[in-house]
């Protein structure tokens, strides 16, 4: 079981928004400069805390999208939930120069670092791509050649987060493949997958179990259940199938 114990107390820190980037109509990335940030591992998350002027506070967790190699900075990518309490503020309100309280990094299981090797299978649904992107960016930053496949399920091409960056990475890196499935709307001439992931789709895409792949799956509950069960059925070692799930939550 990989992972490191976090020592001492995780204190709240103030980060300053230094960059924002609109990723899709509903998702935005916020890059925070966090003085004294001690670094993180790809796949970990942070807690964010908002405080209203009467002292009311709300906390949520967000996956880190940036690689550890970007020192002193943390990027999170937030998807707006229309009935959410915190995500609309982070996506629509916060701007460069604003500050945000956060603490972390948190979590040590859903983590991949280049020395852990591969082949690597990343399976992301919707904004479940975020922690997987930290792994892909880390892999790039350390010039790892671990064979990596990303299976990314989105409703439409417009809802694919990091699309340009993923295109660029795959053009430059023959050991990285990105396979999309667009489940609701496809652009004209689309020849890729157009259905929700299932066992057959995963069998097409996944590394053969004899290669002892490592799998990381992140997305909504049913997506993760389907993908994880299918990989185990295909013969993946359950201990090498790591999952992170987003519930059907209206609160974020």
């Amino acid at each position, binding site marked *: 079981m990989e992972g490191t114990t976090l020592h001492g107390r995780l204190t709240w820190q103030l980060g300053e928004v230094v960059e924002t980037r609109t990723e899709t109509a509903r998702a935005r990335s916020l890059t925070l400069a966090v003085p004294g940030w001690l670094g993180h591992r790809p796949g970990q998350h942070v807690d964010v805390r908002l*405080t209203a002027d009467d002292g009311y506070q709300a906390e*949520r967790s967000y996956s880190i999208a940036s690689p550890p190699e970007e020192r002193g900075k943390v990027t999170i990518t937030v998807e707006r939930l229309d009935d959410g309490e915190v995500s609309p503020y982070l996506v629509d309100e916060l701007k460069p120069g604003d500050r945000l309280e956060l603490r972390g990094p948190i979590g040590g*299981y859903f983590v991949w670092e280049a020395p852990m090797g591969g082949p690597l299978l990343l399976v992301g649904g919707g904004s479940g791509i975020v922690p997987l992107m930290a792994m892909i960016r880390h892999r790039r930053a350390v010039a790892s050649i671990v064979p990596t496949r990303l299976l990314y399920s989105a409703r439409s091409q417009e809802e694919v987060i990091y699309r340009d960056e993923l295109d660029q990475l795959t053009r430059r890196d023959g050991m990285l493949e990105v396979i999309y499935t667009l489940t609701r709307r496809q652009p004209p001439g689309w020849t890729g997958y157009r259905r929700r992931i299932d066992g057959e789709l995963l069998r097409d895409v996944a590394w053969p179990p004899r290669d002892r792949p490592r799998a990381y799956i992140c997305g909504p509950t049913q997506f993760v259940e389907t993908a994880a069960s299918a990989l185990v059925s295909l013969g993946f070692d359950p201990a090498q199938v790591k999952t992170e799930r987003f519930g059907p939550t209206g609160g974020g």
Partner: protein
Amino acid sequence: MPESFISRGFRGRRQAGEVSARLPPGQYLERGFPVLSAGPTPHTPLERWDFSIVGSVEQPKRWTWDELRALPHESVTADIHCVTKWSKLDSHWEGVSIDTLLAQVESEADYVIAFSDGGYTTNLPREEVTGGKAWVAYEYEGEPIPPEHGGPARLLVPHLYFWKSAKWVRGLRLAEQDEPGFWESLGYHNLGDPWKEQRYTGD
């Protein structure tokens, strides 16, 4: 951290007083039932399922599924609090009290380590799972617990963060010494009292 920090432009959505009084610090109200687990959902057939108490006991004890179901059971209504920030009020469970199970073994051990299908473990002081505070639950809202929520049986320790309520639980190992379980080894708090916001090591 200066307590005076204010998030510019944040208003928030306060809950009514009676709800907010039931939400521990940093938690928000959830009406669905999110799923969180670190790996694939295990599926152990009931005919191969058992629950055992092992470790520091005079005589280990084992119950088959039918034997466990034949034990005296209780209905539990509880608020549950996940360390990922959601809380769910008035959830209904049916299961066997840990008091009932521990009454059938002889042990002086002060700690229990719950263990589950899939290799998950979580540690608890014995006093946190006795005295009507913890159960092996097998029904949720009047139905068998769905596999993704920990069925066929999960530990239910509602006064602590929900990672202590081990899904797919298969037994308790009694121990003289405390030893951290899965999340407790990965930076999460050893006890996890939501009212003290004991999320992470050092909280």
